[in-house]
């Protein structure tokens, strides 16, 4: 019989406490190597759509915010298109990167992204997903980056029809994926453990 000859993915290791040196060096106090930290600005021009701030904290099992985490987000533009070579449905807004990267603050643990509200993207079977942002969290003590999704609590109708949200058996956990809105500021806290542990995805 032939062999599948498949390679194994390189195993993950924690990003460690000094992830900032490699990913957001000016946050670590290293200036002059790169012009600016990559992913700091997601909006690079006159981006279309509703401008929003996505902010929050990441809490450990004692309720203490992580002050050494790094968060990346990835999302569609206001029209639901990704700024990616793999986007074959059309051209995304050139003034919107779709990807951003921010550390949590070294004192307060707060992260913040200035972005636009994403449009709806189809599920593989053609149904529309609710507007959402993919989030990836790494830090000291996290052995494999954690993936979650940020949904918007004021999109009740779209959320009710979302193919991912609707497959979650424990409905009581769904609110852990909802950003709370106050004006243009959407707050999304991540709980790594405890009663309100955020839903993380294996994708």
């Amino acid at each position, binding site marked *: 019989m032939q062999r599948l000859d498949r*390679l194994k993915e390189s195993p993950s290791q924690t990003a460690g406490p000094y992830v900032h040196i490699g*990913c957001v060096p000016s946050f670590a106090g290293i200036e002059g190597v790169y012009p600016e930290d990559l992913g700091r600005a997601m909006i690079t021009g006159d981006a279309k759509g509703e401008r929003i701030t996505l902010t929050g904290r990441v809490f450990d099992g004692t309720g203490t915010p992580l002050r050494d985490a790094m968060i990346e987000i990835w999302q569609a533009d206001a029209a639901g298109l990704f700024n990616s070579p793999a986007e074959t449905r059309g051209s995304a807004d050139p003034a919107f990167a779709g990807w951003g990267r921010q550390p949590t603050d070294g004192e307060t643990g707060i992260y913040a992204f200035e972005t636009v509200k994403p449009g709806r993207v189809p599920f*593989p079977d053609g149904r529309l997903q609710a507007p959402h942002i993919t989030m990836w969290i790494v830090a000291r*003590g996290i052995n494999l980056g954690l*993936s979650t999704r940020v949904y918007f609590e004021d999109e009740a109708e779209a959320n009710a029809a979302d193919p991912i949200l609707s497959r979650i058996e424990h409905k009581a956990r769904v609110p852990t994926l909802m950003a709370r809105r106050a004006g243009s500021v959407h707050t999304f806290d991540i709980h790594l*453990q405890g009663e309100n542990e955020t839903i993380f995805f294996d994708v």
Partner: protein
Amino acid sequence: MHNNPPETGAFYPRDPDWHPQALTPGYKTSVLRAPQRAKISFDPTLGEIAGPAFGHGLLGPLDNDLILNFASPGESAIGERIIVHGRVQDERGRGVGGTLVEFWQANAGGRYRHKKDAYLAPLDPNFGGCGRTITDAAGYYSFRTIKPGPYPWPNGVNDWRPRHIHFSVFGTGFAQRLITQMYFEGDPLIDICPIVNTIRDQAAIGQLIAPMDMANTVPMDAMAYKFDITLRGRRSTMFENRREGN
């Protein structure tokens, strides 16, 4: 960047027995940061299948030279000069071209240039510790640096990290996103490192140990180590279920 059509297949599932588990008590910080409930699985959607791309225009000429990229003019970082090179590939063995690879490390004495690192080994005024590059069309990358030193860290009373370089890799889809660490062949600290040992499979650990590569050393200049990085593979899209019009 390349003429090949973009890859749009969904990814093979991750192997949870190959990656470290979230809760690894030997690495104490994981205890309060490990989610305790089962992850929810779904087959990747476009948001996982697509990912950001970074053009070669992002890079400065010294981005992949840690010996010089923080040094004063005419000076260079202290330590054993090394070249690290390899290939970013996927589980099918295909090279992953045009992808961003970022790396960071301690200096030759084991000290990081970071406000939270208080180790008594001195900073090197000519060493910052970060670099980046983008793989060529076939997936190859290389950079020049100094061999990082081992360093003690608060976990057990006497834990030391083996010499290592941290790597961040994007791939072509966001679900391939990976952060890992490279170790050096022959380092006796590897076997007793609580972070290395969050990985249970010895063959998986071996995948993170770079062999010395004499053939690629630069005589009278720099040693070489080879470090290949494997990202998740993609299914063929030829027979994917698709509704009309999608």
